């Protein structure tokens, strides 16, 4: 698909079947996907379409039961051991007993970085997410949006080239969400990271992505992949342009074709 840039994530015929008490559930079936370096790829679909499962397979939090997947040319497990990616969860998942800066320091401590190196990276990443001045605060002293920004800083702190984000703004109100979407795009522009972003919001997916992967449920599969024609510079009001609305309509068509709107 994006032949020119080297693939960061490459999956072919990927399948995952969970064994449950109600029998096997096919969470992923025949997923083919390539994510090139520097791309911003969104996975969108209704709940149960396997978008989070796919992200967790990339992160080696789930093991696929069939097919092939590689991350940076390695197995997901090897990639995880090399700390190839930062993962942002649905909730901020900050440790309540650590201050913001100690939370950002957590992966750095685990990697065994020196104190001075830690301090430098904490300063840089907190600056990147506009949380300078909140270093000594505890998570409960911050708003939900600020907490999620801190968790993004934590995922950025160890300089992985790949950022995996699982509905990171899903629990936030729309105003905060718009603001964070804008900031995330700026951050992506500045850091040149590859981002794989799970969402169930069509405007969010269209606004952020260079490519939108539409998924559908039962079994979880990729039903359409849409290349965005929007420029890299995207002010918030780009969402009112005909071009934006056309892409959103295509995403909606893709969801409908995957029977996502069926009862």
């Amino acid at each position: 698909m994006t032949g020119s840039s080297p693939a960061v994530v490459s999956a072919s015929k990927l399948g995952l079947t969970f064994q449950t008490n109600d029998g096997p559930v096919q969470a992923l079936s025949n997923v083919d996907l390539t994510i090139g370096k520097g791309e911003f790829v969104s996975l969108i679909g209704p709940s149960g379409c396997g978008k989070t499962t796919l992200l967790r397979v990339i992160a080696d939090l789930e093991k696929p039961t069939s097919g092939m997947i590689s991350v940076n040319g390695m197995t997901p497990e090897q990639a995880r051991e090399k700390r190839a990616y930062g993962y942002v969860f649905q909730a901020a998942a900050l440790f309540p007993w650590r201050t913001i800066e100690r939370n950002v320091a957590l992966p750095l401590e685990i990697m065994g970085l020196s104190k001075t190196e830690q301090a430098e990276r904490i300063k840089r990443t907190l600056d990147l997410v506009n949380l300078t001045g909140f270093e000594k605060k505890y998570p409960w002293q911050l708003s939900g949006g600020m907490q999620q920004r801190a968790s993004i800083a934590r995922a950025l702190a160890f300089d992985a080239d790949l950022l995996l984000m699982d509905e990171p703004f899903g629990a936030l109100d729309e105003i905060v969400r718009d603001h964070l979407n804008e900031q995330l795009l700026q951050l992506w522009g500045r850091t040149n990271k590859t981002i794989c972003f799970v969402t169930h919001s069509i405007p969010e997916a269209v606004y952020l992505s260079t490519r939108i992967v539409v998924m559908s449920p039962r079994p979880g599969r990729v039903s359409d992949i849409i290349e965005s024609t929007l420029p890299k510079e995207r002010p918030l009001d780009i969402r009112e342009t005909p071009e934006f609305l056309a892409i959103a309509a295509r995403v909606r068509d893709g969801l409908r074709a995957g029977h996502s709107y069926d009862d």
Partner: protein
Amino acid sequence: MDTFRDKLVPVTSILAGVIVLWYVFAVILNAPFQRDLDTRANETPGAVEFIGKTLSQPKPTLPAPHQVAVNFFENTFLRPITSNRSLVYNAWVTLSSTLLGFAFGTALGIVIAVGIVHVATLDRSLMPWIIASQTIPILAVAPMIIVVLAAIGITGLIPKAMISTYLSFFPVTVGMVKGLRSPEIMHLDLMHTYNASRTQTFWKLRVPASVPFLFTSMKVAVAASLVGAIVGELPTGAVAGIGAKLLAGAYYSQSIDIWSALVAGSIVAALLVMVVGIAGRIVDRAMGGRPA
């Protein structure tokens, strides 16, 4: 201040109720013996005088609150604390073995919990034994521990502390197993994405997450520890300690002494639980806990 008053009113009204009931029962329970005495002395006192007498017997069936209070005051404040009749001295003897046993018990409880959480075999094999250990009546085990240890030359503080340990490790084990397993899946996944080792996950996630559970279980453990120390004093020949006072009081029918020793024991227990609670709150604040 308001919370203090909110607590003060209910606590004092309950206390007042208990004291009134206590007086009523003291009169009822001491009346037969007093009637007996009066009949033999050919006296027919009026109701008020009779009630007064039931509340001032030297060896009453149930001592009146003021009798216990006077005895407690005399034995706490009016005796040199080196005297073996001083409640302060006896409370200290019990307290020292309580604290030693509590320290052992907490350490043992934590070690067992860590084992159970990290070794699947221990999880399956150890827990039934631990629960079984607590179903054995401590009154049956305590003399055996004392006698066996005395036979191999260990006497004094250690045997009593061991009984405290026996009672106090259990709540700590149960609490810490729960605490060490309390981290959310998301936090464990997070550590997994960092490729954190088991040791790192243990120290950076499981241990801090278990701290509130530890203090809750330590509150139970410290009270159990005190009970263990008192029970441990009963078969030691009753030299000193709150348990020894209880036993001596029972020998010589000094019911007032028994009750004031009980009061001393309760005060020690309340203080111990309070100290653990305060320590817990200080640690919680240091770990960024939200002020309540």
